[in-house]
């Protein structure tokens, strides 16, 4: 456990430190890079939390795709030089965040969480770590899952099953969501052919609301 603790604290320091960097430094490009570091650290958390699959997804999607997308965006918008100055809400935002943090810490500490009973701990761990892989029989035995039905249940339990089973509806919905988001993004990003940057609607003040306040 000691090793894992050390890893946890290291990751924590990295995650929090880099996160602070993301929100504090003015250089947007570096902020984006620090964000990648945070993502990777969070991936590390996932590994510690028996969620290897998520860790992979985290690194691939977040650190890979999203961060790259953001970095592209940073490069494309010419404001990089101007950097990322804070606005006037620094102090209220800071105070509110701190207060919220205090509240959330109280929640974490002061709630009577119903922790996993020790007898289930190992089987749950198996299920979680084995969510995307087959579980060796001896592992099951070691975890005290002895009867066949329970073994089968642990064997069968997997993220994929859940995603196309019990969670098929949000799964489908999220696919529609992705589609919609993509279509929306596409429609917004592609320039209009006729009027260039400004949409045709903008010439109709009542419609676009461009008239002065």
């Amino acid at each position, binding site marked *: 456990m000691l090793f894992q603790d050390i890893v946890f604290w290291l990751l924590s320091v990295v995650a929090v430190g880099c996160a602070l960097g993301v929100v504090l430094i003015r250089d947007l490009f570096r902020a984006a890079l620090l964000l990648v570091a945070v993502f990777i650290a969070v991936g590390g958390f996932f590994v510690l939390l028996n969620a290897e699959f998520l860790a992979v997804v985290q690194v691939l999607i977040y650190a890979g795709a999203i961060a790259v997308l953001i970095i592209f965006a940073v490069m494309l918008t010419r404001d990089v030089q101007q950097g990322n100055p804070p*606005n006037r*809400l620094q102090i*209220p*935002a800071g105070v*509110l*965040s701190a*207060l*919220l943090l205090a*509240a959330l810490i109280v929640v974490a500490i002061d709630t009577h969480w119903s922790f996993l009973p020790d007898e289930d701990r190992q089987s749950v761990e198996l299920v979680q770590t084995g969510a995307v892989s087959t579980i060796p029989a001896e592992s099951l035995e070691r975890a005290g899952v002895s009867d066949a039905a329970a073994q089968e249940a642990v064997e069968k339990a997997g993220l994929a099953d859940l995603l196309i089973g019990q969670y098929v509806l949000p799964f489908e919905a999220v696919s529609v969501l992705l589609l919609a988001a993509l279509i929306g993004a596409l429609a917004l990003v592609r320039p209009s052919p006729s009027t260039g940057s400004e949409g045709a609607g903008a010439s109709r003040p009542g419609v676009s609301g461009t008239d002065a306040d």
Partner: protein
Amino acid sequence: MVNEALVWAIFLLPLGSFVLIALVIRPFLNRWPLLAALSTIAALTASTVLAAITLRSVIVHHGAVFLSWDWLSYGGATIQMGLLVDPLTAVMLVVVTSVSLLIQIYSVGYMDGDPGLARYFAYMSLFTASMLGLTLSSNIVQLYAFWELVGVSSYLLIGFWHDRPSAAAAAKKAFIVTRIGDVGFLIAILYLFFKADDFAAVGLNAFHIPDIWQAAQPVAAGAAVLGGAALTWMALGIFAGAAGKSGQFPLHAWLPDAMEGPTPVSALIHAATMVAAGVFLVARFFPVFQQSVEAMAVVALIGAFTALMAATMGLVMNDIKRVMAYSTVSQLGYMMAALGLGAYHAAIFHLVTHAVFKALLFLGAGSVNHASGTFDMTYMGGLRKYMPATYILVMIASLSLIGIIPLAGFWSKDEILLAAFDGNAGFADWINIVTFVGLIAGVVFTAFYTVRMVMLTFYGEFKGGVDQENADLHPQPAASAQPHADAGDDAHDEEGGHHGGVHLAESPLVMVAPMAVLGLGAVVIGYVINPQWINFLGVPIHWVTGFVADGLHVATGGEGHAKLPDFDWQMAGISTAAAVAGALAGLAVYGLRRDPVREPLRILGPLYVLLSQKYYIDVLYENLIVRRSFYRVFAALANWLDRRLVDGVVDLVGWFFRNIGSAVARLQSGQVQAYGTAIALGSLLIILGFLLAS
């Protein structure tokens, strides 16, 4: 028994005349205004005849009460419209119809050529009808209704020349002042209704006048339905109404101003009939008054005081009609005093004689005005030569007013003075003494101002009438006494009357004839209808006084005849002495004066000013109370409060909402992150709220 339909007709005929004129003649036949006069005179002639028949019938059969229809009915008290014909009513009917008839005839001449003639006769008809209705009412609410209608007719007639600001103002003043008194009357009615259940418990109707009489009478077992302090207050409420109508102090201020109306109106309404309605009202509820010594004392004192005070004011007036107006106030004071003293019969008797001679006096003033064009006596003089008939008739009336034997005024005034001399047994001595002294002093002053009036008008040299008056006024245009007059705006060139120019001649027959009839009355009516020593021309001793006193006697549950005091030589001597003294003083002052223009009484100095300013009572009322205190301060304050405070709060709330909106909208800075901050802040506040609450 009198025939109910006939009695109704007395009232309905003039009313019909009014309706006819108002709805037909005035709108469609205005080119022939004499039709209106005809209608009025015809109706009144018939009414007079019917009134005489009624009187006769009442003499023979005593009174009668007719209840015709329920007007409204609530909680055991039914307001029944009906007729109450008792001796008082019968006498009043005859007085009102006959005087009114004569004055209508007179008006045909006096008002000749006035563009509003039809309107005039309509109002006159309405007034007569209302007055008759008033005397006939069997129900206090009905009485009140006609009471008010009389008031409004008076308002209309005073303001008949409504384009004259002073007339309009005087009309308004008359109405409002009398209405202040009417509040007391109304409250008395409210009190009656308050007691309606008690009335009903003994089978009486709280609004029915004979029932009220009965309720006020003490009963053997227990308290009367009406009694104690409440009865006094109720009586005083009624008296307040009466005082307003009859111009008793402190509500007398309107009556002199009311002379802005046409002179026949003054004669009929503000001398002979309507102002006497106050006396009538007290007489009508005399059985109630009788039960309260306090109320009687108030009536007596106010009557005596008014009699004296008005007489003094009459001393210095230059307007002949105002002199007569104060004289009227004064004489009404005598009647009130008589009532207060318990001399019911004397008051009514004086009411009758006064109606005749005062009407005559006013008609005489009208006649004088007809010739001179003015009412200002300082521009008259020497008219005796030009209008002898008028002169003689006015002399008769004046002597009657002064109380010279054997003219009408003497007999009736003598009865009042006798009653005052005897005093009311219930009163404290000082009250009796004060009353008597006041009344006697009044006699002196009455004689004085009457003589002054006659001297100024008929003797000496003619001083130019209206022409001279206009010439004097020309440099300073129409300085009206009325506050609301738009000075200078008025295109009228005459100030005192509507007859332009001076034409020194006797008035036409249509005017003189009614005066002559009244003159005859002023001579004979005092003794002939109320002989003092022996039955005269078939009329029994104390006929009128006995007649009305019997009416009262019966009403209060008495048996047989009322007992009346006999003629008292001693008293007659005192009163005659007082009258002659006053008259001689007047003769001395005005017959022997050297400067025909300067007013001799000016030597009184400040007293003269005080009198000519009417004791500053008008100033007090109009300037100090109404204008300065009420209108400029109190009402202005209320108005200011309404706009600033009450409405201001409303506007403030509106302003607040509009601006709080803008203020909050300012927070909507357009910064999207501010919105996010609001979300965070809101969430935290909610959490905090829950934590604090639990």
